[in-house]
């Protein structure tokens, strides 16, 4: 296998729906192996990017190569190497679980009998044997997701697209889906995953692209993204509530950025290096201000998002109406 060919390479990818540019010049470079996360709020353009890469939608402008093949000229070659699990269950709701698997198996080139065998094996591995003969419309959200992923594994894809694989399912199912995704990576499949959940990207992805309003606003490893936002935060809780004003004043005088918290005994200090942590604690000790507890951590991806896009990671309250289903 040639792993030096990038899984995805795009330059200035654009897709317009009417006047609105759903994707407005996206550059991505994703190497093979591992999990790549595309993080963004509702309407950011995640699904649209994915559908262009999966050869379902023709870009209006820009270049895109998937596993070395051009999306405009070699869509068939791309389709032979990818699998897509869409945002809305990419299954036939009227058919049973096993019928869905057989249908996909036959389309992927297995004979009926082997397709059934493959289907049953996969259903068993995904804990869906009991539901095999039930129509998919009677499945729970979690079961649907699992079947959907199973359908992408009838043959092992080189690149798998997962569009919001855990949206709308409970935390336990979500953890199961995460485990499944990690397993696939071990098997040599590259995963491109979109998500609205910062925690999900942080937990799973090796690299993350943050997109907003159709453009990439930041790219890197979760660690790099956090570093880009700058500092970590030292949270200090004082023993004596009345000492807080004194502590804040002392630290400000030293030029340390500090903000009092809602908790009357607590304050947060923005630090650049871990040395600042010891320095702050020493200053407080010198002034005989007793510290009850403290914690130091990198900023959460929520904070990263806030800094990068200037908005919290909540759905956009766009004035533009959402048109049609994708």
């Amino acid at each position, binding site marked *: 296998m040639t792993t030096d060919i990038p899984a995805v390479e795009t330059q200035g990818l654009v897709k317009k729906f009417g006047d609105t540019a759903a994707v407005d010049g996206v550059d991505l470079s994703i190497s093979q192996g591992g999990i790549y996360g595309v993080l963004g709020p509702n309407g950011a353009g995640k699904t649209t990017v994915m559908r262009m890469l999966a050869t379902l939608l023709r870009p209006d402008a820009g270049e895109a190569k998937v596993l070395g093949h051009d999306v405009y000229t070699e869509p068939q070659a791309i389709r032979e190497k990818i699998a897509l699990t869409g945002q809305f269950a990419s299954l036939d709701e009227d*058919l049973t679980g096993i019928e869905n698997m057989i249908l996909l198996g036959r389309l992927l080139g297995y004979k009926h009998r082997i397709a059934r065998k493959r289907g049953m094996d996969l259903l068993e*591995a995904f*804990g869906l044997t009991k539901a095999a003969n039930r129509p998919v419309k009677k499945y729970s959200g979690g079961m649907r997701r699992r079947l959907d992923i199973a359908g992408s594994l009838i043959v092992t894809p080189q690149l798998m697209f997962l569009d919001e694989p855990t949206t709308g399912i409970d935390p336990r199912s979500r953890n199961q889906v995460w485990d499944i995704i990690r397993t696939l990576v071990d098997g040599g499949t590259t995963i491109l995953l979109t998500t609205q959940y910062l925690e999900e990207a942080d937990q799973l992805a090796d690299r993350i692209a943050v997109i907003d309003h159709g453009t990439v606003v930041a790219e890197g490893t979760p660690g790099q993204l956090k570093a880009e936002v700058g500092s970590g935060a030292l949270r200090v809780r004082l023993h004596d509530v009345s000492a807080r004003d004194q502590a804040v004043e002392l630290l400000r005088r030293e030029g340390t950025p500090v903000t009092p918290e809602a908790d009357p005994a607590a304050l947060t200090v923005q630090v650049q290096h871990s040395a600042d942590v010891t320095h702050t604690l020493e200053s407080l000790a010198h002034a005989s201000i007793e510290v009850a507890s403290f914690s130091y951590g990198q900023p959460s991806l929520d904070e990263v998002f806030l800094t990068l896009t200037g908005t919290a990671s909540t759905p956009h309250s766009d004035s533009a109406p959402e048109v049609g289903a994708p």
Partner: protein
Amino acid sequence: MTNSQSTTQSSTPATPVASGEPERIRKVLVPQQDRPAPASALTACVAYGWRALLKIKHLPEQLIDVTIFPVMMTLMFTFIFGGAIGGSVDNYVQFLIPGIFVQTLIMITMYTGLTLNRDFSKGVFDRFRSLPVWRPAQLVGALLGDQIRYLLAGTIILTVGFFLGFRPEGGLTGVLAAFALLLVFSFSLSWVWTAVSLAVRTEQAAMGVSMFVMMPLVFASNIFVDPSTMPTWLQRAVEVNPVSIVVTTIREMMAGTYSLSSLGLVALCCGVLIVIFGPVSMFMYNRKS
């Protein structure tokens, strides 16, 4: 054997997953190089046709359209208009049954388009289009699967007709030959609705456009009445209406006469429909997002 029914009815959710799940999944993955060559165009059409048959099996209620409706039409036209149009019910049945046979089947072809339109708005459409198979197979397969519906509806009409006294001179051979020809025409015509369903957004719009096209074709034809009683300008229209051409040929075949010119005309109609609407549908299908 006593509790065997309860196992299929069980509504318990999927088995809780032990920690061994990743291991189990790893075991069922096939190495990337072991994947078979994707299905050929023909195999893909057959697979999608199988899907259409499964839909009929799982949703038998959609067959109401193709069973009740034809029976109603036949009975209504025979007894309401029979005396007035054909002189007597018995005479009129001989004239009407081949016509209503054609009408019913071509009306049902509209449902093919509606079903596809519903399909396109579902998530599974994206999945199908991401597969490395000949894309229009989804369309062709659906049309092939629908032949079963046509077959069923046609059989019902002819059976009802038989009980009403329809005795074609061409016998069973003539009827079967006519049936085969009508299936070919229905298949050809369904490409029109496929194109319509791809061109419009909603199912209602597809229904509206289809009806708008279908109604004049059905009524400005020789299905219900002999056009010799119509004004001349209308007679001209009826003569060139492809539905009339098909009805005439079907009547001839059921009566045991096979005219090469009629058959040729029908073949021409089928050819034109497929040559125009087939590629148009496939082009729109590929561009559909």
